[in-house]
């Protein structure tokens, strides 16, 4: 059963099609990667699926329901949570506060005007769990701005997981990370994928081959082909797209 689906989706900016007539389906329980050369429209598709962009044509579905008209916050509340290409953490808040924020809606605290969030023991307990799971025990009270880039990436992942999402959408999670960090984050993603569906946009082929069960290749705003890593990596048109041979 497809969890997230795009049917004949397009988006045009002043006549230029960033994404054109794309059919895409994300199946429950899979780890799916979208790859392609720069300018292929991967992140745009991503934004369309998470409703940060409105399509100019076609529709988007979540578990069979038409969500084309909804906004990103509504999608997130349905359980579809994304991360960002450039690490998105709340710099001025501490690590703990970042995680607490993600947990607020679970504890129904998001409209509380007075009183501190930490009065809710359920929230505190869950926050502690996540801090431990991702190894933030010592850094819990550091401002996110003071973390290294690698740790910021992990924090972003942690807050995404804290939402206990149905579907995890990760936009180039390895971008800007060094070797050690990549391995660690890959492990965390595999862990997080248990019982969830994951969609990745990624450039790093090693990571893609390690994590992804299914791969979609995009070129110039359209879907080129789909399949497993082994299938896809051998197709001549895919190789051509990456090496630039044949337009």
């Amino acid at each position, binding site marked *: 059963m497809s969890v997230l689906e795009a049917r004949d989706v397009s988006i045009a900016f002043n006549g230029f099609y960033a994404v054109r007539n794309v059919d895409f389906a994300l199946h429950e329980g899979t780890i799916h990667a979208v790859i392609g050369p720069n300018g292929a429209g991967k992140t745009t598709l991503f934004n369309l699926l998470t409703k940060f962009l409105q399509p100019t044509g076609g529709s988007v579905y979540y578990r069979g329901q038409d969500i084309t008209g909804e906004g990103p916050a509504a999608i*997130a509340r349905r359980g579809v*949570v994304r991360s960002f290409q450039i690490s*998105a*953490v709340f*710099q001025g808040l501490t690590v703990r506060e970042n995680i607490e*924020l993600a947990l607020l809606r679970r504890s129904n605290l998001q409209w*509380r005007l007075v009183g501190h969030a930490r009065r809710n023991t359920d929230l505190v307990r869950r926050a502690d769990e996540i801090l431990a799971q991702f190894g933030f025990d010592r850094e819990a009270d550091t401002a996110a701005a003071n973390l290294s880039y690698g740790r910021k990436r992990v924090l972003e992942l942690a807050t995404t997981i804290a939402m206990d999402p149905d579907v995890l959408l990760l936009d180039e999670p390895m971008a800007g990370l060094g070797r050690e960090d990549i391995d660690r984050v890959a492990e965390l993603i595999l862990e997080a994928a248990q019982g969830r569906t994951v969609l990745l946009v990624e450039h790093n082929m090693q990571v893609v081959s390690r994590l992804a069960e299914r791969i979609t290749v995009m070129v110039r705003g359209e879907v080129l082909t789909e399949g497993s890593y082994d299938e896809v990596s051998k197709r001549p048109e895919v190789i051509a797209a990456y090496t630039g041979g044949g337009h």
Partner: protein
Amino acid sequence: MTTIFGIPAALLFGQLLLGLINGAFYATLSLGLAVIFGMMNIANFAHGALYMMGAVGAWFLLDAFGVGYWTSLFLCPLLVGIVGILLERLILRRVSHLDHLYGMLLTFGLALIIQGLFRFAFGSSGLPYAIPEALSGGTNLGFMFLPHYRGWVILVALVICFATWYAIEKTRLGAYLRAATENPALVQAFGINVPAMIMFTYGAGAALAAFAGVLAAPILQVSPTMGADLLIVIFAVVVIGGLGSIKGAIVAGFSAGILEGLTKAFYPEASTTVVFVLMALVLLIWPAGLFGSKTQSASTSVVLPALANETSLMRWALFAAMALSLAVAPVFVYPAFLMKAMTYALFACAFNLMAGYGRLVSFGHAMFIGTAGYVTAYVIKGWGFPPELAILAGTASASLLGLVAGWLSTRSSGVYFAMISLALAQMIYFVALQAPFTGGEDGIQSVPRGVLFGLFDLSDPAVLYVFVLLVFLGGFLFIAALVRSPFGQILKAIREHEPRARSLGFSTEHYKLAVFVISATLSGLAGSMKVLVTQIASLTDVHWLMSGEVILMTFLGGVGTLYGPVVGAFVVVAMQNYLAALGAWVSVIHGAIFVVCILAFRRGIVGELISYVSARQARSVAAGTRADAPDVVARRLKAGA
């Protein structure tokens, strides 16, 4: 005589032609502003002052050196352009790396200084400047008499508009300018001196403003304040056209002139307000203006100054200190001043909630304090309400206004948000001026203080003081609690990274609206209290200068801190009252404080204090842990964190 909707056709055509001419003038004046915004992303509040310098310069050149109009047309823009270059190089450049809001505020301060100095040198009444001989007289067009000078204005304006548009859109220099706007670093890498380009652009914008000033001198009254009221109209025009769009400024300028002309034919009293109505309508449909494409990018996240290791004890101690000193102060300081300062402090705190924590800097906050004031004054005097109900009514009216205004304005952000809030405030000003119940120019006077809950006689100064103090402390506590609440944390998150907040499931537009309404409500409370203290509700409270003052108070004290606005309010009210003997220097001093604040004490008094203390704390912590450093590193490596 044919009539159209009751107006003679000849008259209507005459008004339209006049409107067109005014539109040409608006377009010329807006060009400079659009160019500066396009290039530097700064809303140049000094534009009105530069325009004024052109006009007064023309007068001065004639009066002191006998230099005539034709020479002034070249000389004044040149001289003012040089002033503009100096301003950019010496002052504006220092904040170019910061949030563009600071640039805007800095130009606001500069405008106050320039205007104040000119007022001091040349008086406020006006300076005579005649139409040059060659352009005097006029022709009878049949439906109206058209002075030759007006015809000249429209011709010159069209030429300048076209020339500027051509230079920016069609020449290589223009292309570099446009590229540098998009990506200054990249263009600099190509070997083009971007800082110099910026400097000359600002100079060119200033020159355009001065040119419009010289154009205006023969027909409008030349005086140091001539730019002030015109400025907000020009801002509206540029916003309608789309900030940064040359084409937009020209189209919007002409349209505004024609629309004003039409309004003057049918409902002249509204002619100075109609531009703002147009702006609000345009922004509703095209949030970036007619031709605007500049999206207000989330700028460098300003980390709110905060003390590390802040404990609950410290917070309560600080609050107790403030409460205690305010309780004891009336013994040493004139109580009426303290009460007035406290109501302004509440207003500033409410503004800070939105501007500091919510990142929504409104330029129209006066509409809340003023509306609540009028409502409170009216229900007491006209309907005999007791004070508690009057305060409730006033606060509720501000709340309601906040809901409407908030819904309209929170769809925009950055400068657009500021401008649409200004437009709404101007409309409220117009209503206040026209509505019979507000008493117009006189305001509502001698508002009796009444008896609170039937028990406490507020005419007793001691009772009133306690009441004001309690309300202020209550409002302050509420804001302090709000900031630390989950709602406050979400606000902080939204201001830092709105897309991330949305991706976590928070409907950010609802939160922004909520903080807007809360801010409006508390401002309304401040307004109601102010009326009880000063016993007068007047147009001053809804004027855009009041909006400017609350911005000054908040930034002076420290935007984004809890106590900053309080300190800022007390300082500004003290200046207002105790420096009143200085007369014309007050606005110069205000402006100078603004400028110094933005340049050197950006975090405001309290903010700088916090930073200083934090830095000392950090140093002592670092000194203490330097010895342990290797252990820490080792431990971290082992944990693999």
